[in-house]
């Protein structure tokens, strides 16, 4: 079975776009092949800074032949109908159609259309240019005099097709003056001249010999393994950083890992600042010294060149830049310390009056004051001292005005912690400065110190309430103010700390629904059923996230029991019947069963059971004993089952029927004390 090799060679593709582009290329090409009847055995995409490639393995040489029978008009139909048929079926004359007969319709024409499958290269030559023209780059550009758009100028295209054992052919096409061929190029500096390639294995081998590792994952493996080894050889540990590794693997075709050093004096600067400087500006790794537990004065850089001097000049050059950057960082750190010693950070809050937080939400100063007031209110609910929480909130954003944070925004909060400690403020305040931003993402930890919790909740609530008020809610994939993250963060803080918070005291119903959505996402990730969350939120007054979760958990356990499953089925059945009958009758049933009309023993038993269970469930619920409530619910299963088995709801006697429907309404009502069973799946 023949294989396809496609390589799009261009000027440097931004690192952050490479993985997505490889996925897109694979999906677009294979989907287009399959859509045209060309099934394949396997496909793999490759990406480097200068090439995007795809190998599709095990394709047929041509599309399958197709046969279609198209029925036409009856024999003797008007000429217009015959002409229409000829045009639609592509026949030259009606003689080419067969005449078939049918006892009902009589004799009619049938066109037998045989289509020979087209050769695969012809199909490829059609789909690839279309995919290139419409490729979903996040940002694309034009160049020179052309009109083609690509992420950066596209320079050449390899497109070959053929069986493993033979010389593959070039799939010929042209796009904006660029002709497909079988020639590529190797590493920009370590290789020169054209390289003719045949198919995947050949392409990989020749490029490897030309100093290009085409597989992104392999480049990552090489970088990580070499970096760890090099660190180990110096008695140090690599500070691993998956995001940085991803980015670096997109900046090199031939990774060469080197180690350099910087002056030990820079280690006065907090580790995080050193790391932020070296990572953001130089895209280098930092190293831990296991002896001190702190950073070592070394860095690991990944160059794209096996230099003829072994990399000495590259290490020296990078070292100089890192020195300059660290001098800046140290200068900022020293300046901050000096300034803070003269005027404490908290005394400089007034400056925030001139900083706009958001055009419609006022200054950063106003926001800080709001957060402080809210933190004070929340403090008793989370076990924090109100005055301390207020003071911590006033301090929490103060580091935004420092030099270090101005230069490295990613260490906000952390610097607040360091500066608070230097100022001798209570440790709770220092911690809150760092922790009130948490959790930043799913992998980040949740604050537990009460003061941190109060400030973190206040910060997130203020953000959400503010943006809700000015109608800047997240829509679809757009969430510029990271409001989903803020809401999810709040949900996690509440749940992980077991906090009792009636959210409706702080937010409007629409925002409460947003929290419900975030809670669903959160619970789904931990394996809970989102329909149960819906079923609980459908009840009135569910604004305490912790109770919602407890109720959902109890409900989940109950529904896994036989009693639970059957009661759910019975309740749904009751609800269905009610829905149909209420629609038919145009009335709503409920409002009490007339005991004198209960004839059958099963309906009397059910009415008794409901009457007994009602107050018990209510008592259990008001004691927040959800397990207990579910236990009472279980006692309803047998009477409900028996009722449906023995009693005909739609009785001839109208009064009897209405009374039984009222009984069904009671089933619906009693289960609604716990959850809206109609929203539960299954």
């Amino acid at each position, binding site marked *: 079975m023949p294989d396809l090799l496609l390589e799009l060679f261009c*000027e*440097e593709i931004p690192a952050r776009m490479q993985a997505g582009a490889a996925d897109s290329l694979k999906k677009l090409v294979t989907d287009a092949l399959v859509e045209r009847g060309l099934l394949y055995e396997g496909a793999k995409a490759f990406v480097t800074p200068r090439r995007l490639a795809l190998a599709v393995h095990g394709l047929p040489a041509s599309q399958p032949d197709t046969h279609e029978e198209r029925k036409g008009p009856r024999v003797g139909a008007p000429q217009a109908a015959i002409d229409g048929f000829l045009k639609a079926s592509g026949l030259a004359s009606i003689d080419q159609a067969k005449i078939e007969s049918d006892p009902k319709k009589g004799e009619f024409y049938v066109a037998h259309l045989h289509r020979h499958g087209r050769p695969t290269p012809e199909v490829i030559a059609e789909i690839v240019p279309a995919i290139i023209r419409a490729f979903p780059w996040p940002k694309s550009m034009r*160049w*020179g*005099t052309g009109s083609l758009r690509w992420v*950066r*100028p596209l320079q050449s295209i390899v497109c070959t097709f053929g069986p493993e054992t033979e010389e593959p052919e070039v799939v010929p096409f042209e796009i904006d003056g660029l002709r497909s061929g079988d020639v590529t190029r190797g590493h920009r500096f370590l290789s020169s001249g054209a390289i003719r390639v045949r198919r995947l294995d050949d392409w990989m081998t020749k490029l490897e010999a030309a100093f290009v590792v085409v597989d992104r994952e392999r480049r990552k493996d090489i970088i990580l393994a070499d970096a760890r080894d090099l660190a180990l050889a110096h008695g140090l540990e690599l500070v691993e950083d998956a995001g940085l590794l991803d980015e670096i693997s997109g900046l090199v075709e031939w990774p060469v890992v080197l180690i350099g050093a910087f002056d030990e004096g820079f280690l006065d600067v907090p580790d995080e600042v050193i790391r932020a400087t070296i990572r953001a500006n130089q895209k280098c790794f930092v190293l831990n010294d296991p002896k001190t537990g702190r950073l070592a004065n070394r860095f690991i850089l990944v160059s794209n060149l096996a230099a003829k001097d072994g990399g000495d000049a590259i290490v020296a*050059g990078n070292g*100089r830049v890192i020195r300059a950057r660290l*001098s800046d960082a140290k200068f900022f750190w020293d300046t901050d310390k000096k300034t803070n010693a003269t005027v404490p950070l908290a005394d400089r809050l007034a400056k925030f009056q001139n900083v706009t937080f958001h055009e419609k939400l006022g200054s950063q100063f106003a926001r800080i004051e709001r957060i402080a007031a809210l933190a004070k209110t929340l403090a008793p609910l989370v076990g924090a001292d109100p005055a301390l929480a207020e003071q911590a909130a006033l301090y929490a954003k103060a580091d935004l005005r420092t030099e270090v944070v101005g230069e490295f925004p990613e260490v906000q909060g952390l610097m607040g912690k360091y500066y608070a400690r230097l100022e001798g403020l209570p440790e709770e305040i220092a911690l809150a400065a760092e922790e009130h931003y948490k959790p930043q993402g799913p992998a980040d930890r949740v604050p537990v110190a009460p003061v941190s919790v109060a400030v973190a909740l206040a910060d997130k609530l203020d953000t959400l309430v503010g943006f809700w008020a000015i109608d800047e809610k997240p829509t679809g994939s757009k969430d510029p103010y990271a409001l989903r993250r803020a809401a999810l963060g709040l949900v996690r803080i509440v749940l992980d700390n077991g906090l009792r918070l009636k959210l409706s005291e702080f937010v409007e119903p629409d925002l409460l629904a947003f929290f419900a959505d975030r809670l669903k996402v959160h619970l789904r990730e931990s394996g809970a059923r989102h329909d149960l969350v819906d079923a609980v939120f459908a009840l009135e007054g569910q604004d305490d996230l912790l109770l919602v979760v407890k109720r959902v958990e109890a409900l989940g356990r109950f529904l896994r029991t036989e009693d639970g499953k059957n009661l759910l089925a019975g309740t749904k059945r009751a609800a269905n019947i009610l829905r149909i009958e209420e629609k038919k009758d145009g009335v709503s049933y409920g409002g009490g069963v007339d005991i004198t009309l209960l004839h059958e023993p099963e309906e009397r038993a059910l009415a008794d059971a409901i009457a007994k269970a009602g107050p018990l469930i209510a008592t259990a619920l008001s004691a927040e004993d959800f397990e207990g409530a579910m236990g009472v619910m279980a006692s309803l299963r047998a009477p409900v089952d028996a009722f449906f088995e023995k009693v005909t709801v739609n009785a001839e006697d109208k009064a009897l029927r209405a009374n039984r429907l009222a009984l069904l309404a009671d089933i619906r009502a009693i289960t609604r004390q716990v959850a809206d069973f109609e929203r539960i799946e299954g």
Partner: protein
Amino acid sequence: MRPDKSFQGLILALHAFWADKGCVVLQPYDMEVGAGTFHPATTLRALGPKPWKAAYVQPSRRPKDGRYGENPNRLQHYYQYQVILKPSPANLQELYLASLEAIGIDLRLHDVRFVEDDWESPTLGAWGLGWECWCDGMEVSQFTYFQQVAGIECAPVSGELTYGLERLAMYVQGVENVYDLNFNGREGDEKVTYGDVFLQAEKEYSRHNFEHADTAMLLEQFRMAESAAAKYLEAGWSDDRSRHLMAQPAYDQCIKASHVFNLLDARGVISVTERQSYILRVRELAKACGAAWLATEAGGTPA
């Protein structure tokens, strides 16, 4: 004049290289600008269908970057080496790399990388895609394919290269402080450093930019430049508005407004919200000048 021994040697080597590639080697524009892109040889010539190749040094002023001569890397006045090639040739990256070799950077010894950097000038209504070019981890140039200038689509597309001359010189001379750069390539008594030429100016202008620049006058100058640009633009249009006869004098006023804005910004008298509106006002001027340029002969409208 070896490019690795003197600042002027570096400039001369780049001139020789790009002259050899067919560029007109221009002199700096005689107005205060924030970057080489503001030179009409780039901004205006990037618009319209006519081919164009030019190279020049442009003194660039960034009032806010002044550090009273105390920072070894930051200056409020520095030099950019600017190359503009329209249409961008297919081998522009190779040409750029050859220019690095021409100034003494051995590409088998140094790690040169093209790292994503999308360029945007809100005041010029311009944007493009390209890279910052790294040499051993240091950014030494900007490389941009212009997509839009003055709010107008570029067709053909120009390729723009901007070398940070001081940084590059520090790199090839192996110097840590910009003021230690050898300017004239002589040694001993005859040696002139970058500091000899510019240190006093950095101190004086830092004082001026941050403390003394007359803000009332500058605010007035901004308004004057803005209204002069509008006046010249209007006066330059032919009766049927098919041709423009004064695009460049109008554009000068746009440049002036932009620089005055930068000075006001350095003096800290422009609030965050006002800032946006000033930028928009300059952009409106730039757009109108670009449209006027297209109606001139060099902009592609035959006489």
